[in-house]
C-alpha cells in the first residue's frame, strides 16, 4: 500500500469510503470497506472479506461479458481494500434529470443492454442504482459497486436485480422513472431476446405481487 500517495477522501458511501490517489503514475480510486462498529466483529469481518474478494472477481467477469468496469490494480483482503482505475465521467444519478427525453432514452437503453449482457453471463449486479453507474464523455456507461453481486443462473435473481433498478428509479427519479425503465427494458430485450425479456418481466411482476401491501396481489 506504500506505493499509493496523496490519498484524498472523495466519497463516503454507506459501505465503503472512496479515496482518490496516485498509484505508479496512475490516477486511482482506493475503495476501503471500513469496519462497522454496529455489528459484531465476526460478522463484520465475514462481510467485508467476502465482498472484497468477490467484487473484483465479478468486475472481471463483467468485462468478459462486455460490460465496462474499472480495471482492478490491487486487492488487499487484510485491510478490505481494492485499488482500481479512476473513471472520468458523471454519475448517471446526477446526469439523468437534466437530460432531454432522447438523451435519457439513449442512456437508459444502453444501461438496459449492459444489464442484459451481465445476465446472459449469469452475473447479478445486486445493487443496480443510478449512483453506481458512470457516464463517460464518449457515451459509455461503466458499472461500479459489485459488492452485493453474485453468480446465478436463476430467473429469480435476474428478476430481483431489475426490480431493484425499477425501485431505485421510482424513488430517485420518479418523474421520469416509468419512461426510463421502459427504455432500460428495450435495451435489455435487444440483448437477451424477446422471449427471455418477457419471461423476466413476468418474474418482476411476480416479485412485486409478493411484496407487502401490493394492490395487484391476487386475493386469496
Amino acid at each position: 500500500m506504500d506505493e499509493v500517495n496523496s490519498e484524498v477522501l472523495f466519497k463516503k458511501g454507506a459501505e465503503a469510503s472512496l479515496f482518490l490517489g496516485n498509484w505508479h503514475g496512475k490516477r486511482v480510486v482506493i475503495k476501503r470497506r471500513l469496519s462497522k462498529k454496529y455489528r459484531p466483529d465476526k460478522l463484520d469481518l465475514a462481510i467485508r472479506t467476502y465482498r472484497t474478494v468477490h467484487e473484483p472477481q465479478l468486475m472481471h467477469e463483467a468485462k468478459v461479458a462486455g460490460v465496462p468496469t474499472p480495471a482492478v490494480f490491487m486487492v488487499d483482503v487484510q485491510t478490505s481494500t481494492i485499488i482500481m482505475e479512476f473513471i472520468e465521467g458523471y454519475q448517471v444519478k446526477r446526469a439523468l434529470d437534466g437530460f432531454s427525453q432522447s438523451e435519457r432514452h439513449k442512456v437508459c437503453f444502453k444501461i438496459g443492454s449492459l444489464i442484459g449482457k451481465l445476465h446472459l453471463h449469469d452475473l447479478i449486479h445486486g445493487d443496480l442504482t443510478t449512483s453506481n453507474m458512470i457516464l463517460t464523455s464518449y457515451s459509455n456507461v461503466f458499472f461500479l459497486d459489485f459488492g452485493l453481486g453474485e453468480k446465478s443462473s436463476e430467473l429469480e435473481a435476474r428478476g430481483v436485480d431489475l426490480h431493484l433498478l425499477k425501485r431505485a428509479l421510482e424513488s430517485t427519479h420518479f418523474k421520469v422513472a416509468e419512461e426510463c425503465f421502459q427504455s432500460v427494458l428495450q435495451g435489455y430485450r435487444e440483448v437477451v431476446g424477446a422471449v427471455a425479456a418477457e419471461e423476466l418481466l413476468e418474474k418482476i411482476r411476480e416479485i412485486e405481487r409478493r411484496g407487502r401491501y401490493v394492490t395487484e396481489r391476487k386475493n386469496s
Partner: protein
Amino acid sequence: MSTQEPKERYCLGIESTADDFGVGISTFSGQILANISDCYVPAEGGIHPREAARHHACVAEIVLKEAFTQSGIKPKDLSLIAFSQGPGLGPCLRTGATVARALASYLGVPLVGVNHSVGHIEIGKLQTGAKDPLTLYVSGGNTLVTAFSFGRYRVFGETLDIALGNCLDVFGREVGLKHKKGVPLGAAVEQLAQRGKELVLLPYVVKGMDLSLSGLLTAAVTLFQKGECTLEDLCYSLQETAFSMVTEITERALAHTEKKELLLTGGVAANKRLQAMLKSVADEHNATFNSVPLKFATDNGAMIAWTGILAFTHGLVTPVERSFVRLRWRVDKVDVPWMK
C-alpha cells in the same frame, strides 16, 4: 376541563390494523390527551384475523370510554373522527372503520381515513421533533425505509418477504416461547439474546436497499431443531444478523438521501440493541437519532388522530361512502400535502 381554551378542536383516532385496538384523542395543535389500547393475545399461534376482530368489537366500548375519561373531554366536543383505513388485516380494519363511521355519523362530524404507516411517521415526528427524517419502520407487519420526496413518503428499502417483527416472533414461537399479554415474543427473544455469547454465522441477505429475512428465519429454526447451539446463542445470532441487515440498508438510504434525521419507529423500535446500532449509523453520518417512545412506536390511536388532523386541515376528508378499508395501501401511494 376548566383550563381548556374554548376554541380548541379535538380529533379522535381509531387504530385497528392488527392485534391492537387503540383510541387516541389529540388537540388540533398536537397535544395528545388520551392514548388507550387493548391488545388481542392469541391462545396459541399467530394473530387469527377473525378472532382479533372479535376482540376489537368486544373491547371497543371500554377503550373508547377510557379514552374519554383520560382526555377529560366529551364526545360532543369532538370535531373530527379519524381511523386507520389500511394497510392491515381485513376483519380488524373493518371493525375499527365501523366504530369510526358510527361515531362520525352520530356526532355529525367529518370522517378521515388515515394510512397506518404514514400515522407511524407523523406521530414519530410529533413526539421527537424531527422535521424531515429518514424513517425506519419495523414491526410485526412492516419493515421499510422511507423518506419524504416530491409529495409522498417514498420507499427506499423494504423487506422482500417477511417483516422483522414477524421473523423474531415466529422464531420465538418455533422455539417454544410463550406469548404473554404486554410482552411480545420479540421482547422474549431480546432477553435471551442478551445472554448469548457465541455468534453463529447465518444467511445475510441484502439486495440493494432491500433485504430478505425468510432464509435467515428458516436457518435459525433448523439450527435450533438440530440442537447444536444454545437457544441464547441462537437468539443473539438471529438478532445480530437481522439487525445488521436492517442497519445496513438504513445506512445505505441515509447516504443516498442525505437526510439529517433518522427516525426509528414500530414495535421493534423498543429493542435496545437495534436502537444502539442505528444510533451508531446516525452518528457516523452526522444525522440526529430519534427513537419514538414505546407507547407511540407500537400501534396506537394517537397516531391516527394526529395524522387525521394533518390530513383534515389540508383539505382531506373521507365521506362514509368512500370509507371502505384498504388492505394493501402502500405508504408510497399516499399524498401528504402537509409536507413541503
